[in-house]
Protein backbone atom coordinates (compact mmCIF):
# COMPACT_ATOMS: atom_id res chain seq x y z
CA UNK A 1 0.00 0.00 0.00
CA UNK A 2 2.79 2.40 0.94
CA UNK A 3 4.63 1.70 -2.30
CA UNK A 4 1.49 2.32 -4.38
CA UNK A 5 0.97 5.59 -2.49
CA UNK A 6 4.57 6.61 -3.17
CA UNK A 7 4.18 5.78 -6.86
CA UNK A 8 1.07 7.96 -7.03
CA UNK A 9 2.88 10.84 -5.34
CA UNK A 10 5.90 10.59 -7.64
CA UNK A 11 3.53 10.58 -10.61
CA UNK A 12 1.89 13.72 -9.22
CA UNK A 13 5.26 15.42 -8.83
CA UNK A 14 6.14 14.45 -12.40
CA UNK A 15 2.90 15.94 -13.73
CA UNK A 16 3.50 19.15 -11.75
CA UNK A 17 7.05 19.37 -13.11
CA UNK A 18 5.80 18.91 -16.69
CA UNK A 19 3.18 21.61 -16.15
CA UNK A 20 5.79 24.01 -14.79
CA UNK A 21 8.21 23.42 -17.66
CA UNK A 22 5.33 23.93 -20.07
CA UNK A 23 4.36 27.07 -18.20
CA UNK A 24 7.85 28.42 -18.74
CA UNK A 25 8.39 27.22 -22.30
CA UNK A 26 5.18 27.90 -24.21
CA UNK A 27 5.14 31.05 -26.34
CA UNK A 28 2.01 32.91 -25.22
CA UNK A 29 -0.68 33.18 -22.56
CA UNK A 30 -3.26 30.88 -24.17
CA UNK A 31 -0.85 28.02 -24.75
CA UNK A 32 0.54 28.39 -21.22
CA UNK A 33 -3.00 27.93 -19.94
CA UNK A 34 -3.05 24.51 -21.64
CA UNK A 35 -0.16 23.31 -19.52
CA UNK A 36 -1.41 24.70 -16.21
CA UNK A 37 -5.08 23.71 -16.55
CA UNK A 38 -4.35 20.06 -17.26
CA UNK A 39 -1.28 19.68 -15.09
CA UNK A 40 -2.93 21.21 -12.03
CA UNK A 41 -5.94 18.92 -12.18
CA UNK A 42 -4.15 15.62 -12.71
CA UNK A 43 -1.26 16.47 -10.39
CA UNK A 44 -3.58 17.32 -7.51
CA UNK A 45 -5.64 14.20 -8.18
CA UNK A 46 -2.60 11.91 -8.14
CA UNK A 47 -1.10 13.51 -5.06
CA UNK A 48 -4.31 13.39 -3.07
CA UNK A 49 -5.03 9.78 -4.02
CA UNK A 50 -1.53 8.85 -2.92
CA UNK A 51 -1.89 10.64 0.43
CA UNK A 52 -5.32 9.10 1.05
CA UNK A 53 -3.95 5.62 0.35
CA UNK A 54 -1.08 6.25 2.74
CA UNK A 55 -3.50 7.47 5.39
CA UNK A 56 -5.70 4.38 5.10
CA UNK A 57 -2.71 2.11 5.71
CA UNK A 58 -2.62 3.30 9.35
CA UNK A 59 -5.76 1.31 10.00
CA UNK A 60 -9.46 1.77 9.47
CA UNK A 61 -11.36 3.97 11.92
CA UNK A 62 -14.00 6.72 11.87
CA UNK A 63 -11.52 9.60 12.08
CA UNK A 64 -9.32 8.09 9.40
CA UNK A 65 -12.34 7.73 7.15
CA UNK A 66 -13.29 11.37 7.74
CA UNK A 67 -9.78 12.59 6.90
CA UNK A 68 -9.69 10.40 3.77
CA UNK A 69 -13.03 11.79 2.63
CA UNK A 70 -11.80 15.34 3.23
CA UNK A 71 -8.73 14.62 1.10
CA UNK A 72 -10.90 13.22 -1.70
CA UNK A 73 -13.15 16.27 -1.29
CA UNK A 74 -10.16 18.54 -1.99
CA UNK A 75 -9.45 16.59 -5.18
CA UNK A 76 -13.09 16.65 -6.33
CA UNK A 77 -13.41 20.35 -5.58
CA UNK A 78 -10.25 21.07 -7.50
CA UNK A 79 -11.45 18.91 -10.40
CA UNK A 80 -14.45 21.25 -10.67
CA UNK A 81 -12.73 24.51 -9.76
CA UNK A 82 -9.58 24.35 -11.87
CA UNK A 83 -11.34 24.33 -15.29
CA UNK A 84 -13.72 27.03 -14.08
CA UNK A 85 -10.90 29.32 -12.94
CA UNK A 86 -9.09 28.66 -16.23
CA UNK A 87 -12.23 29.49 -18.14
CA UNK A 88 -12.82 32.75 -16.24
CA UNK A 89 -9.23 33.86 -16.75
CA UNK A 90 -9.26 33.00 -20.47
CA UNK A 91 -12.54 34.82 -20.93
CA UNK A 92 -11.24 37.98 -19.33
CA UNK A 93 -8.09 37.77 -21.46
CA UNK A 94 -10.16 37.25 -24.60
CA UNK A 95 -12.50 40.12 -23.79
CA UNK A 96 -9.63 42.52 -23.19
CA UNK A 97 -8.39 41.76 -26.73
CA UNK A 98 -5.25 39.83 -25.92
CA UNK A 99 -4.51 38.25 -29.29
CA UNK A 100 -3.17 34.69 -29.35
CA UNK A 101 0.17 33.66 -30.81
CA UNK A 102 -0.51 32.16 -34.23
CA UNK A 103 1.53 31.15 -37.24
CA UNK A 104 -0.70 32.47 -40.02
CA UNK A 105 -2.12 35.54 -38.28
CA UNK A 106 -5.77 34.43 -38.34
CA UNK A 107 -6.76 34.30 -34.68
CA UNK A 108 -10.34 33.04 -34.95
CA UNK A 109 -11.47 30.42 -37.46
CA UNK A 110 -14.98 29.04 -37.69
CA UNK A 111 -15.64 25.35 -37.52
CA UNK A 112 -16.59 23.41 -39.57
CA UNK A 113 -14.97 25.47 -42.37
CA UNK A 114 -17.67 24.88 -44.99
CA UNK A 115 -20.17 26.97 -43.01
CA UNK A 116 -18.01 30.03 -43.41
CA UNK A 117 -19.83 31.48 -46.48
CA UNK A 118 -23.19 31.67 -44.69
Amino acid at each position, binding site marked *: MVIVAAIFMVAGLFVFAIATIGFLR*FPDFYTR*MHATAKGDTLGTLFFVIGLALYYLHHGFCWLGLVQGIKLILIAVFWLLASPTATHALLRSAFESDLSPWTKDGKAIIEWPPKRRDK
Partner: protein
Amino acid sequence: MGFIVTFLILLVFWIFISGQLDWWHLSWGVLSCALIAYISHDLLFKDIRSKGKVKEVINFIKYIPWLLYQIIRANIHIAYLVLHPKMPQLIDPHIIKFKTKLKKELALVTFANSITLTPGTITVLIEDGYFYVHAIDKIVAEALPGEMENRIYVLYMEE
Protein backbone atom coordinates in the same frame (compact mmCIF):
# COMPACT_ATOMS: atom_id res chain seq x y z
CA MET B 1 -38.40 19.52 -2.32
CA GLY B 2 -35.37 21.61 -3.22
CA PHE B 3 -35.10 22.74 0.40
CA ILE B 4 -35.01 19.17 1.75
CA VAL B 5 -32.43 17.93 -0.76
CA THR B 6 -30.18 20.95 -0.18
CA PHE B 7 -30.52 20.53 3.58
CA LEU B 8 -29.57 16.83 3.44
CA ILE B 9 -26.55 17.48 1.22
CA LEU B 10 -25.35 20.26 3.51
CA LEU B 11 -25.86 18.11 6.61
CA VAL B 12 -23.82 15.21 5.19
CA PHE B 13 -21.13 17.75 4.25
CA TRP B 14 -21.21 19.20 7.78
CA ILE B 15 -20.83 15.77 9.41
CA PHE B 16 -17.82 14.88 7.29
CA ILE B 17 -16.15 18.26 7.74
CA SER B 18 -16.61 18.43 11.52
CA GLY B 19 -16.04 14.71 12.11
CA GLN B 20 -17.70 14.76 15.53
CA LEU B 21 -20.97 13.06 16.28
CA ASP B 22 -22.00 14.49 19.69
CA TRP B 23 -25.24 16.43 20.23
CA TRP B 24 -23.55 19.85 20.58
CA HIS B 25 -21.97 19.76 17.13
CA LEU B 26 -24.93 18.05 15.47
CA SER B 27 -27.48 20.57 16.73
CA TRP B 28 -25.40 23.50 15.54
CA GLY B 29 -25.04 21.69 12.22
CA VAL B 30 -28.79 21.21 11.84
CA LEU B 31 -29.42 24.86 12.72
CA SER B 32 -26.90 26.34 10.31
CA CYS B 33 -27.73 23.90 7.51
CA ALA B 34 -31.42 24.81 7.83
CA LEU B 35 -30.58 28.51 7.70
CA ILE B 36 -28.33 28.16 4.64
CA ALA B 37 -30.80 25.85 2.90
CA TYR B 38 -33.63 28.32 3.56
CA ILE B 39 -31.66 31.23 2.13
CA SER B 40 -30.20 29.55 -0.95
CA HIS B 41 -32.22 26.45 -1.81
CA ASP B 42 -33.03 27.87 -5.25
CA LEU B 43 -29.37 28.20 -6.20
CA LEU B 44 -28.40 24.54 -6.29
CA PHE B 45 -31.42 23.13 -8.13
CA LYS B 46 -32.91 25.49 -10.62
CA ASP B 47 -35.26 23.12 -12.40
CA ILE B 48 -37.01 20.87 -9.92
CA ARG B 49 -38.46 17.80 -11.58
CA SER B 50 -38.44 14.52 -9.77
CA LYS B 51 -38.40 12.19 -12.76
CA GLY B 52 -35.23 11.83 -14.79
CA LYS B 53 -33.04 13.40 -12.10
CA VAL B 54 -31.88 10.07 -10.69
CA LYS B 55 -31.08 8.75 -14.14
CA GLU B 56 -29.07 11.88 -14.86
CA VAL B 57 -26.94 11.29 -11.76
CA ILE B 58 -26.36 7.64 -12.76
CA ASN B 59 -25.41 8.73 -16.28
CA PHE B 60 -23.03 11.30 -14.84
CA ILE B 61 -21.31 8.68 -12.69
CA LYS B 62 -20.90 6.55 -15.80
CA TYR B 63 -19.38 9.56 -17.57
CA ILE B 64 -16.64 10.13 -14.94
CA PRO B 65 -14.30 7.19 -15.83
CA TRP B 66 -14.22 8.27 -19.48
CA LEU B 67 -13.39 11.81 -18.35
CA LEU B 68 -10.54 10.54 -16.15
CA TYR B 69 -9.16 8.57 -19.10
CA GLN B 70 -9.34 11.75 -21.19
CA ILE B 71 -7.51 13.74 -18.49
CA ILE B 72 -4.65 11.23 -18.46
CA ARG B 73 -4.50 11.29 -22.27
CA ALA B 74 -4.43 15.09 -22.17
CA ASN B 75 -1.48 15.09 -19.80
CA ILE B 76 0.47 12.63 -21.94
CA HIS B 77 -0.20 14.87 -24.94
CA ILE B 78 0.96 17.97 -23.04
CA ALA B 79 4.05 16.12 -21.75
CA TYR B 80 4.96 15.10 -25.30
CA LEU B 81 4.60 18.69 -26.52
CA VAL B 82 6.48 20.21 -23.59
CA LEU B 83 9.44 17.86 -23.66
CA HIS B 84 9.79 17.96 -27.44
CA PRO B 85 12.88 20.09 -28.22
CA LYS B 86 11.33 21.60 -31.38
CA MET B 87 8.04 22.54 -29.71
CA PRO B 88 7.37 25.91 -31.47
CA GLN B 89 7.33 24.20 -34.86
CA LEU B 90 5.02 21.50 -33.60
CA ILE B 91 2.17 23.65 -32.32
CA ASP B 92 -0.24 25.70 -34.41
CA PRO B 93 -2.67 27.39 -32.00
CA HIS B 94 -5.99 28.87 -33.08
CA ILE B 95 -9.24 29.97 -31.53
CA ILE B 96 -11.99 27.91 -33.09
CA LYS B 97 -15.62 29.00 -33.16
CA PHE B 98 -18.33 26.37 -33.54
CA LYS B 99 -22.03 26.04 -32.91
CA THR B 100 -23.30 23.66 -30.27
CA LYS B 101 -26.59 21.80 -30.11
CA LEU B 102 -26.70 21.73 -26.29
CA LYS B 103 -29.27 24.00 -24.65
CA LYS B 104 -29.36 23.34 -20.90
CA GLU B 105 -27.04 25.37 -18.70
CA LEU B 106 -25.73 22.37 -16.81
CA ALA B 107 -24.94 20.57 -20.05
CA LEU B 108 -23.05 23.64 -21.31
CA VAL B 109 -21.04 23.81 -18.09
CA THR B 110 -20.19 20.11 -18.25
CA PHE B 111 -19.22 20.42 -21.89
CA ALA B 112 -17.01 23.47 -21.25
CA ASN B 113 -15.21 21.82 -18.35
CA SER B 114 -14.78 18.60 -20.32
CA ILE B 115 -13.30 20.51 -23.27
CA THR B 116 -10.80 22.09 -20.92
CA LEU B 117 -9.76 18.72 -19.54
CA THR B 118 -9.44 16.85 -22.86
CA PRO B 119 -6.27 16.83 -24.98
CA GLY B 120 -5.17 20.04 -26.62
CA THR B 121 -8.28 22.19 -26.19
CA ILE B 122 -9.47 24.78 -23.65
CA THR B 123 -12.74 26.71 -23.65
CA VAL B 124 -12.41 30.48 -23.98
CA LEU B 125 -15.95 31.81 -24.26
CA ILE B 126 -19.53 30.65 -24.67
CA GLU B 127 -21.78 33.18 -26.38
CA ASP B 128 -25.25 32.68 -27.91
CA GLY B 129 -24.75 28.97 -28.45
CA TYR B 130 -21.30 29.41 -29.98
CA PHE B 131 -18.23 27.95 -28.37
CA TYR B 132 -14.86 29.67 -28.69
CA VAL B 133 -12.24 27.01 -28.10
CA HIS B 134 -8.50 27.49 -28.10
CA ALA B 135 -6.92 24.46 -29.79
CA ILE B 136 -3.21 23.87 -29.73
CA ASP B 137 -2.96 22.34 -33.21
CA LYS B 138 -5.13 21.47 -36.21
CA ILE B 139 -5.27 17.75 -35.46
CA VAL B 140 -7.01 18.10 -32.10
CA ALA B 141 -9.24 20.82 -33.55
CA GLU B 142 -10.69 18.42 -36.09
CA ALA B 143 -11.97 16.16 -33.31
CA LEU B 144 -14.29 18.93 -32.01
CA PRO B 145 -17.40 18.95 -31.23
CA GLY B 146 -17.50 15.25 -32.00
CA GLU B 147 -17.88 12.39 -29.60
CA MET B 148 -17.92 14.35 -26.37
CA GLU B 149 -20.87 16.51 -27.35
CA ASN B 150 -22.87 13.41 -28.25
CA ARG B 151 -22.02 11.83 -24.92
CA ILE B 152 -23.19 14.89 -23.00
CA TYR B 153 -26.27 15.12 -25.23
CA VAL B 154 -27.20 11.60 -24.20
CA LEU B 155 -26.22 12.27 -20.57
CA TYR B 156 -28.67 15.10 -20.05
CA MET B 157 -31.31 13.55 -22.32
CA GLU B 158 -32.10 16.66 -24.31
CA GLU B 159 -34.83 16.34 -26.88
